[in-house]
């Protein structure tokens, strides 16, 4: 049996470039590989990998396996898992890192169960135990109410990593590494899910993940309208976007794409204004990386005040328009 060595990242592309989560994985993977004094390699599999392999090297990879195949055009986990399984056996890494993204969530359990190894999803902290060389995998559990540290002594050790939990390196184009074009025979007959159509739900304005400021509304908002008026007006003053906790999305007040939290989007803006949100751990999981959190809630005992740096206790219908108006004056003046 070959010895398992090195760290392998299963990367993701967005329009021919590395996704931001992949650059985060590379930053984290580099650190782990250096600790182990082993290599960091990255698999990039798509119908066209474009300039992403070079980018992956600039962000820390020693070696990039570039797999181009038209069968990878649609994001089908049953196709990707074949690539991941082949690369796992060929590169025989000690550790495989993936993003806790829609793709990674779908792919990682398939891979782990096929390889009969363990998996920790949604990790926020990874370290190498200097004695055993095992990967210490920390992830929030119980909706974020506790953290658990896992290890796995079956190789490879597989984890998915939460978005924005790791810091990418500065991209450095002078870094050297190898790009290895690789062919994997993808058996399309085992892709048993057929995609009939894709429906995009329009979200206008600034993208949540990129917004410098987010004004987020919860169940206490009471209906769809205020998301377009009261909350939107404040977001506009802050040049930010409007988000939501899960109940507004479940109730159809806002599109699912606006839902922030453990099972929604993970955001880390400079300013996060939480409005009529109680502060359940599962919601905080999606916004705890924000630089400054501000809470408006009518209940002085709401848990959100344990998370926020600034707060106002009061009905948002009264607090928000006054806040928006005053900010407008201050920022204009």
């Amino acid at each position, binding site marked *: 049996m070959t010895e398992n060595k090195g760290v392998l990242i299963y990367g993701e592309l967005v329009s021919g470039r590395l996704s931001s989560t992949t650059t985060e994985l590379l930053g984290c993977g580099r650190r782990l590989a250096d600790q182990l004094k082993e290599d960091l390699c990255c698999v990039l599999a798509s119908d066209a990998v474009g300039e992403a392999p070079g980018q992956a090297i600039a962000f820390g990879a020693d070696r990039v396996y570039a797999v181009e195949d038209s069968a990878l055009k649609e994001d089908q986990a049953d196709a990707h898992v074949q690539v991941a399984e082949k690369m796992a056996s060929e590169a025989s890494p000690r550790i495989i890192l993936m993003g806790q993204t829609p793709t990674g969530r779908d792919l990682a359990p398939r891979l782990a169960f096929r390889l009969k190894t363990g*998996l920790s999803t949604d990790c926020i902290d990874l370290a190498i135990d200097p004695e055993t060389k095992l990967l210490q995998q920390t992830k929030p559990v119980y909706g974020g109410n506790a953290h658990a540290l896992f290890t796995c002594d079956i190789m490879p050790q597989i984890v998915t990593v939460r978005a924005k939990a790791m810091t990418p390196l500065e991209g450095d184009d002078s870094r050297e590494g190898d790009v290895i074009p690789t062919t994997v025979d993808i058996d399309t007959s085992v892709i048993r899910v057929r995609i009939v159509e894709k429906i995009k739900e329009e979200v206008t304005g600034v993208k949540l993940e990129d917004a410098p400021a987010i004004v987020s509304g919860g169940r206490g908002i009471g209906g769809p309208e205020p998301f377009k008026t009261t909350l939107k007006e404040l977001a506009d003053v802050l040049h930010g976007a409007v988000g939501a906790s899960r109940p507004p999305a479940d109730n159809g007040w806002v599109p699912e794409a606006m839902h922030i939290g453990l099972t929604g989007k993970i955001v880390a803006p400079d300013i996060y204004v939480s409005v009529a949100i109680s502060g359940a751990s599962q919601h905080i999981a999606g916004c705890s990386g924000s630089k400054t959190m501000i809470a408006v809630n009518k209940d002085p005992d709401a848990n959100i005040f344990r998370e926020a740096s600034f707060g106002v206790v009061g009905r948002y219908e009264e607090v928000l328009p006054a806040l928006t108006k005053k900010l407008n004056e201050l920022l204009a003046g």
Partner: protein
Amino acid sequence: MSEINMIVCCKQVPDPEAPPSAFKVDTAANSVTLPPDIKPVIGQYDEFALEAALRIKDKAGGKVTVLSLGNKLVRDVIKKALAVGGDELVLLEDDAFEQSDSWSTAYALATAIEKIGTYDLILCGRQSSDWDAGQVGTGIAQLLGVPAVTLARKVEIDSGKAIIEQVIPDGYQVVEVGLPAVVTVTSELGNLRYAVLRGIMAAAKKQPTVWKPSDLGLDSSQVGAAGRHTKLVRLFQPVKEAKCEIVEGDSAAEAGANLALRLRQAKIL
């Protein structure tokens, strides 16, 4: 197609919506404890999965078998699945199932599903409300060799296939998959219906089928803590320093305006 056989995997968990302050960690036992007044529930996403099955049953008929693995499962809690319209309850219940991880859970559930034998659709929650792993559904599919579709917000059966609306970033896609298949369900599917009195009474009379590892042909090294692939080294609560500055005013509106001034003064804006 003849009657559709559905299996819904439901896990009993501590109420995930209990206030964060209620969650404590027993570091010696490496487990989470909650005050006794906080009752266990069926995992939220598992309830959505059950609702998906019941909607299919409403429309096309069929049989819904609820499958749960654990130990000392509270009958009143898990029987809710029958009260709302589930037909049968199969419990994998034994001391040996304690401290299962995603691997040993999926392994035992998949073995039980094979023992049940007839199944067209296996429904799971997208993730359990305690370990938040999101692995068991897909894991069962791998072990049984059937396809899996994750994050369903709508599931329908049509001419022997499942038609699923699957949540993707910024929208959803409609996918089609042959049966049998595993589908994991997300919150937008909608809440589980309430139990009606007749359902509650019927559920009270039904006896669950209880299987131990030996009933599944598994020995104790394959289940629970012994069958794990991951080791839980440490469970802990990160320390949080309470530091919220409450901005006040004579009225809520004035407090809002004062907040703007304070943020400006603190150079946050």
